[in-house]
């Protein structure tokens, strides 16, 4: 994929991409990626469930896995561990705010249920991140949502149902749609 110096000039002229960078030269450095290669490392999930893989699980399934893999740090039912308190509210009684600074660790604070799935899938559990199967990740997500009172114990979470879960703090962030540059300046104030 390397091009010789003598080819750079013509490459610069020929390769003008469409968006925002129309005047910049291209150097033709780097190696093209195939769709198969991208699939092997691309696990990021969008807020609307973009790229969620096929799988399923309920809170009942998740309870067993949680006790085995997660409880050591997060405590029984995610309520009392040495780390983040994952739970606010209780089954059947979701916490609806107002949220305080110390409430941010709970899954109830998340605007999208997919965030929990994505983080559990890529970063948990601590000793072996990425070692959970998709079904296990759906089950654990269901379990935590259930303990926060957001879904029922037998509700099945899969690639279609998870993005539709209504999170109590969905409208707790401003502006409604993030924009850049920010409407309000300076952004730190």
């Amino acid at each position, binding site marked *: 994929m390397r091009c010789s110096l003598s080819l750079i000039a013509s490459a610069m002229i020929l*390769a003008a991409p*469409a*968006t*925002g*960078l129309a005047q*910049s*030269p*291209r*150097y*033709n*450095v*780097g*190696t*093209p*990626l195939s769709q198969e*290669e*991208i699939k092997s*490392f*691309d696990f*990021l*999930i*969008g*807020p609307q469930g973009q790229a969620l893989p096929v799988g399923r699980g309920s809170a009942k399934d998740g309870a067993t896995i949680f006790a085995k893999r997660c409880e*050591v*740090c997060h405590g029984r039912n995610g309520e009392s*561990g*040495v*780390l983040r308190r994952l739970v606010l509210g209780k089954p059947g009684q979701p916490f609806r705010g*107002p*949220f*305080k*600074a*110390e409430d*941010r*660790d709970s899954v109830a*604070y998340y*605007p*999208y249920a997919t*965030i*929990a799935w*994505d*983080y559990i899938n890529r*970063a948990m559990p*601590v*000793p072996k*991140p*990425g070692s959970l199967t998709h079904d296990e990740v759906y089950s654990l997500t269901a379990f935590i949502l259930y303990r926060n009172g957001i879904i029922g114990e037998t509700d099945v979470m899969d690639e279609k149902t998870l993005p539709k879960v209504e999170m109590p703090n969905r*409208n*707790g*962030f*401003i*502006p409604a749609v*993030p924009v*850049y*540059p*920010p409407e309000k300046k*300076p*952004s*730190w*104030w």
Partner: protein
Amino acid sequence: MGSNGTGRRRFLKQAAALAGVGVGAGIGGNLASNAQTAKDAHGPAEHLRRGVPLRRGVRMSVDHITFYTPFQDYGGIITPSHLHFVQQHSSHFPEIDAANHRLTIHGLVDRPMSFSMDDLKRLPSVSRVHFLECHANSSSMIHHNGNANMGPPVQYVHGMSSCSEWTGVPLSVLLNEVGLKKEASWLVSEGADPGKFSHTVPLGKALDDVFVAYGQNGEPLRVEQGYPIRLFVPGFEAPFSVKYLSHIKVVDQPYHTFNEGMNHSIPRDDIGGKSRWYHFEQGPKSVITRPSADVMTLTKGYVQITGLAWSGGGKISKVDVSTDGGKTWKEATLQTPVHTKAHTRFTFDWAWNGEETMIMSRCTDDQGEVQPTQKELYTHWGVPEKDMNKPLRGSIHTNMIQPWKIARDGSITNAMFA
């Protein structure tokens, strides 16, 4: 943040918990080897090899490793690389083989590509002096005295900001190589650390002054700074500058990964208890590093006041110093050149007359933004009157003016909530 004793007990408790799942040895082991050495030609800094005690405050937990920069120990604007602050969101630092490391850029692009370290170093490079600051730095929660293990207050309150000369490839160059589709508006970067730290960056910023850094102060990145590469997003809160950068996915909306919305936003009373998705820029901040609390004891006569000022909005245009508790202000001298979005050294000649007083600094950036007082900031946040003079739990983007109180015996204390 608890006292030292609490922190240590908490760590031991967490370590014990982790030992139960088989990684207990990994925490201390990795920290010990990585913290004091770097994978570069220079090896560990000479004074570390000679066993001079580290002045860097270190805090460890199962999911965080924190180093605080000892501002009290040096001058100028550049933070020695091994003293750069760290806020690692995982149990240990990853050990990455640079020869096999790749940066992939995919998503809404015409030509998804992978870049080796050789590829990156072959492309046009830039070197720029910029600060990097944790958005939780100077949090009002940690404004108290007496944590010797973490260093004096100027270190453990304000030491999660550092400044380096960073070298790397402009992200605009890389995005031009892959070609952006017209729906592209944000990107998500992901690190190769155990926590897979991820953050969304708006495309407008990415095409402006963001770069992929492989060099810091004339040497490769230190392991704890993201070796072999990190994203560098000038002026923005540090979580945008993802370490151990391995993937960039170009997308059409913010992804709100765990590391951004959840961990780095905060409900505020002035906006109806809602949180801002993103704060982006760090506000203008300055702090007198010497004389400051627990760093020295004053005697009557000449003493140069010196400190650092910085702003995510641009260059520092002015620093004022007050030596009478904020009644009157005089302009300090700035060390030149002043870099944009960089620590800026200020100095101020003073003679202490032996009377009790408070000294403080206040900076202004080239956007005209002025560092607020504690009262101004709290009022803006909508903090209730009863809590106006207290540390505020979980406060972020805390850039209020830092007062140091000098007693008649020459001792200096943190007067923020005194």
